[in-house]
């Protein structure tokens, strides 16, 4: 499952409405209280869940990815990460429009066992 462990933390790329997080030339990584992180660079934010969170989930078997083009407000339910036992909702750390998703996560991870 090392494939998933490396890439799971990078879920989506969002173009945020307000790039208050970006400094010219820098990508700044910020965390929410719910273990989502977002890193903004040139008006485009990449977000995922923290290493702590993915370890706490245990064996992840399914990830629901948002659709490209969908517009979210901050704190909207944007995704879900599932272990055998439970589904954990993931909330958008910033508002924006999804411009890309990490499609490596799209297939059921059970197939890789």
């Amino acid at each position: 499952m090392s494939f998933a462990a490396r890439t799971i933390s990078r879920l989506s790329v969002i173009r945020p409405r307000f790039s208050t997080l970006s400094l010219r030339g820098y990508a700044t990584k910020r965390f929410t209280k719910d273990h989502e992180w977002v890193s903004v660079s040139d008006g485009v934010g990449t977000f995922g869940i923290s290493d702590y969170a993915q370890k706490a989930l245990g064996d992840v078997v399914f990830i629901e990815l948002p659709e490209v083009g969908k517009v979210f407000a901050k704190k909207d339910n944007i995704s879900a990460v599932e272990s055998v036992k439970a589904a954990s909702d993931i909330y958008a750390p910033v508002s924006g429009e999804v411009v890309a998703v990490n499609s490596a996560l799209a297939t059921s991870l059970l197939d890789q066992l």
Partner: protein
Amino acid sequence: MLATRRGFSTTTAAKLSKTSLYDFHVKNGGKMVEFAGWSMPVQYSDLGVLASHEWTRKKASLFDVSHMLQTSWVGKDRIKFIESLIVADVEALPVGSSTLSVFTNDAGGIIDDTVVNKRSESSLYVVSNAGCAEKDLKHIRSRLADFQNKGADVDVKVIDTHSLVALQGPKAVNIIADLAGATNGLKDFKFMTARELSLKGIPVYISRCGYTGEDGFEISVPHAEAVKLSELILEREDAKLAGLAVRDSLRLEAGLCLYGHDLDETVTPVEGALTWTIGQRRRTEGGFPGSAKILSQIGKGAVVPRRRIGLFVEGAPAREHVEILNPADGKVIGNVTSGCPSPVLKKNVAMGYVANGFHKAGTELQVRVRGKVQKAVVTKMPFVEHAYYRG
């Protein structure tokens, strides 16, 4: 995120009961959580849920299930008494044999599911769910008082002297046969029977049964010997400790109900697809609570408003409370009561209830998970074939 949904909570134990294996679990890396008022290991630090699930299906997993309620029913009228509470034909049960049954309420709903063993010519050994222990005892004792007041010779005692551990998986029999010094490899010890054995000098009452769909045993062992027995079992390279989390995925693949989720007081045995637990003689004689309602659901002209079914689900796993829809008009026709991704089948399995008429195997339905409609198909259970030893 990280909101746990299944009713497990990590609490700093305030007044939680501990089994005789508590320290042993902690020593072995058990992550202790609250379950039914007990502090129990949900998993162990060296083994994820998926790996533990696979281990159980290929080797042998050892579970502490001491939180379950074990009772002893004695007295000349014990069979008459238990038959006044459950749907089984206990009279016809051979000595040494066990059967799955249900306690019913006056409305025909299920109070709890249980395994009843005819231990000897003078006693019954009964095991029921930890989460229903208080409720079951209150119910049993109330009915017992009525019986005793009418002069019946019967008593029900909680077995508080023994712990209960389960060893489940294809390698379980090799381990137990070895500990028992059994030269015949326990070939005569069939599924759903129980006997007294001595495991390296430890006297136990052991049943060939379990709740994982695998061959295996549930072992009632004196508290003082529970750790020693567990250590003896774990000395075998084929045995590993397993926690409560993996019990759920195992029983779900095996199509077995979890009381409080797939069964509750509003569900009759017929609706719960447990008609088979009602003994033949009991179907004509009745004599258990709610028998009029239950028996009206069996046979010609029977009206059964809803049925428990198995589902294969495409897309995201459908879990408890997910709505089941009629694809023809999108209307809600039922709901999921349990579900998870099946580690063995690598597809999502679920159990739920649908309106009568939608329950036949092969019926194409839909489920709505987080607002998204996904395909589902009614599937016969068990999802993964049982491996019970029938001789």
